[in-house]
């Protein structure tokens, strides 16, 4: 049950996480200004799962969850928006050790680290990755896709800063602190 291997818990977390992500696809609050973007609850879920279970789970949930969600609800898969979600999950998950969520230590410093990383990861995913893929794959006008990307970035960053942080904090609270048990000599 150590690090780099794909553990049983990660297998299950990736599966259930994907299912949750798909179910939450439609739970979003539309932003009127730019078409086809919204405050997405599932973004907060993805950040939370990546922060708890690491990059493998984050990547799978982002990739599979977004692709399945798109396919089931919208009958179409926008790969240029699926990949950034996977990138985001992996990036946030890479720093899993820093958040100490499962050890019950998600406090002030960890909240700051989590938010800095999520904002940077969001910027890479939505301001860089998604528009570039949109242009490469669909040859859509640059100003349109960068506009959409910027809105998606802001929406997701806000959603995760509020709901994502809350989820991590609440989950960390119910986990036992590692220091609460001592090894018997």
């Amino acid at each position, binding site marked *: 049950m150590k690090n780099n291997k794909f553990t049983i818990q990660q297998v299950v977390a990736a*599966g259930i996480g994907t299912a949750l992500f798909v179910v939450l696809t439609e739970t979003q609050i539309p932003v009127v200004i730019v078409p086809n973007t919204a405050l997405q609850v599932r973004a907060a879920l993805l950040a939370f799962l990546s922060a708890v279970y690491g990059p493998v789970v984050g990547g799978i949930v982002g990739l599979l969850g977004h692709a399945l969600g798109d396919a089931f609800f919208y009958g179409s898969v926008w790969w240029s928006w699926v990949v950034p979600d996977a990138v985001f999950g992996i990036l946030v998950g890479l720093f899993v050790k820093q958040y100490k969520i499962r050890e019950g230590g998600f406090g002030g410093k960890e909240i700051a680290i989590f938010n800095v990383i999520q904002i940077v990861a969001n910027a890479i995913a939505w301001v860089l990755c998604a528009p570039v893929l949109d242009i490469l794959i669909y040859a859509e006008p640059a100003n349109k896709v960068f506009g959409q990307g910027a809105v998606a970035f802001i929406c997701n960053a806000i959603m995760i800063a509020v709901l994502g942080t809350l989820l991590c904090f609440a989950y960390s609270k119910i986990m036992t602190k590692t220091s609460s048990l001592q090894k018997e000599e």
Partner: protein
Amino acid sequence: MERKLLTYEEKDTWIDKLCGVTKLVFFLCWSVTSMMTYDTRILVLMLVLSLIIFKISRTRWDQVGSVFKFILLFLIINLLAIYLFSPAEGVKIYGTETVLAGSGRYALRAEQLFYEFNIMLKYFTVVPSIFIFIVTTNPSEFAASMNRVGISYKAGYSVAIALRYIPDIQADFRKIRNAQMARGIEMSKKGKLVDRIKSTTAIIFPLVFSSMGRIETISTAMELRSFGKHRKRTWYMARPLKRNDYLVIAISVLFMIVALTITYMDGSRFYNPFV
């Protein structure tokens, strides 16, 4: 969540009897081709072919109708947005300018119409293939057949769990929402933005935490049954690849290669009728 999801339904057609993986290969080749090409001739051919396959798969309209209407709405918004942001994108791509009506920035240009027509075709070529993929593929069989093409069975199992638990978690979602509504929390679209965020939170927390509990339970159960102890495992739902599977895979890959060769033969992914 009231909108109907696309779901699998058993039908006795030869498409139904293909392996999940065959259909996945077809679907991936198909979407890669449709993503890469902007060649109108190929897009039209793909559209006709996908409609024929759609007919053969005996997919009924009521299975996919509501989802299709949604895509249509999405497509229209997207096309309008492209026009709004860049009304002369087509001129940039095709290198000529033919003004049909109006003047100035938002003049209606033949190139722009043609460019947006191509985007529309791109959408329409992919949609039927996804419909077919989802309504004709048995989820359990699909997870089993992923393993067959060299994907680790653990990853296959994640997919199987995801597909298996989507309906359960949806049911949880509904239960929690109804319970919260009974407690008087505003869930309709009329509420203010802040209220809507609050009410969403009231659903998300119980849903996520009950799912975290579910993860613990399932992984413990799997560990007790020694999941992951061996490097291989067998699948109850696995089906061997048959002649038809190999045929479909070969044709899909061949089609992708030919279509992309034709597209890029003149050095550009766009088919240009204006020169």
